[in-house]
């Protein structure tokens, strides 16, 4: 059992598809989870037909969705860091690492979950993962928590090999589906598209994959 899990992602819903099953399982076994979410996904594009949101109301909607998803998963400590969607890579890297480092020092996690820097497609994902690694690198190597990274760039298996953590989350699939549905403004269209494409979406969602970050020092 983990002592404490710290999840660091840039957007509300980043936790839903890739890690909500893992988190729900840890929550069920009593592990406290802190989720630091860097932005409110202000730049999301799905506005619905007819539109249910506009550029100014979207962050408020996504904040509520995130809170609902956290409740579903069993996350009781949600930190909203107040950065703006699509600007993470332009922030001062040291200052960003400072903010994350403070949360690491406070929560003392045994496991950190974030995006694999360089292999997570969205510039915010890569910058978020890089800031987490930068923050943890400041700790002596034997004091660093284990880092499980999500990655989905086309070249990730070619460069990083197969994911070394493969988790069956079928026991909490209902919670995971509820977490995905909670992010209605972002995921409704995606789920519709997935169903239309065919294949077994549910089977895909039942497995979560991570790469353990390998320190280069």
């Amino acid at each position: 059992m983990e002592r404490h899990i710290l999840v660091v992602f840039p957007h509300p819903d980043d936790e839903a598809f890739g890690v909500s099953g893992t988190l729900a399982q840890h929550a069920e076994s009593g592990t406290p989870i802190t989720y630091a979410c860097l932005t409110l996904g202000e730049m999301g594009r799905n506005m619905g037909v007819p539109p249910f949101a506009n550029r100014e109301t979207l962050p408020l909607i996504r904040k509520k969705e995130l809170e609902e998803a956290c409740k579903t998963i069993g996350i009781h400590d949600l930190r909203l860091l107040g950065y703006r969607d699509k600007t993470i890579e332009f922030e001062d890297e040291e200052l960003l690492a400072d903010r994350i480092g403070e949360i690491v020092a406070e929560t003392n996690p045994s496991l950190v979950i974030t995006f694999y820097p360089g292999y997570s497609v969205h510039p915010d994902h890569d910058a978020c993962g890089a800031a987490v690694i930068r923050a943890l690198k400041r700790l002596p190597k034997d004091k660093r928590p284990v880092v499980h990274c999500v990655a989905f760039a086309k070249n990730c298996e070619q460069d990083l090999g197969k994911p070394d953590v493969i988790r069956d989350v079928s026991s909490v699939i209902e919670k995971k589906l509820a977490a995905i549905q909670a992010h209605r403004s972002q995921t409704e269209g995606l789920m519709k598209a997935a169903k239309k494409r065919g294949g077994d979406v549910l089977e895909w969602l039942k497995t979560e994959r991570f790469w353990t970050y390998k320190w280069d020092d």
Partner: protein
Amino acid sequence: MQPIDVWEVQAALNRFANQDVYIHLETTNGAYAAHHNEGFFSAGAYIRNGLIRFSRGKIVGNGPYRVGLKLDFGWVYAEGLTDWEMTEKGQLLLAGHDYEGRLAVALQLSHEPF
């Protein structure tokens, strides 16, 4: 938001003319466009809370619409606008949504910063 009514949007634009106003202008393909289609050239631009002053603002087209703002020394314009809204705070929000309801372009004016 609701489909653009040219007369009402034109009247709203007129109310912002000849004074300092904050502008939000963005256009984007989404961060995953090139991930889903490697041949896709992804581009976008974004300005939030730029302070401008325009002497004339005009909406044209048959839908989707185009809006141009004539500045003392230049221009601002957006095309592909489909929907609009006047907020309780008196902000004019114009947006262009694609056929799946995704925001493709936004042009917004406000007396206060967004």
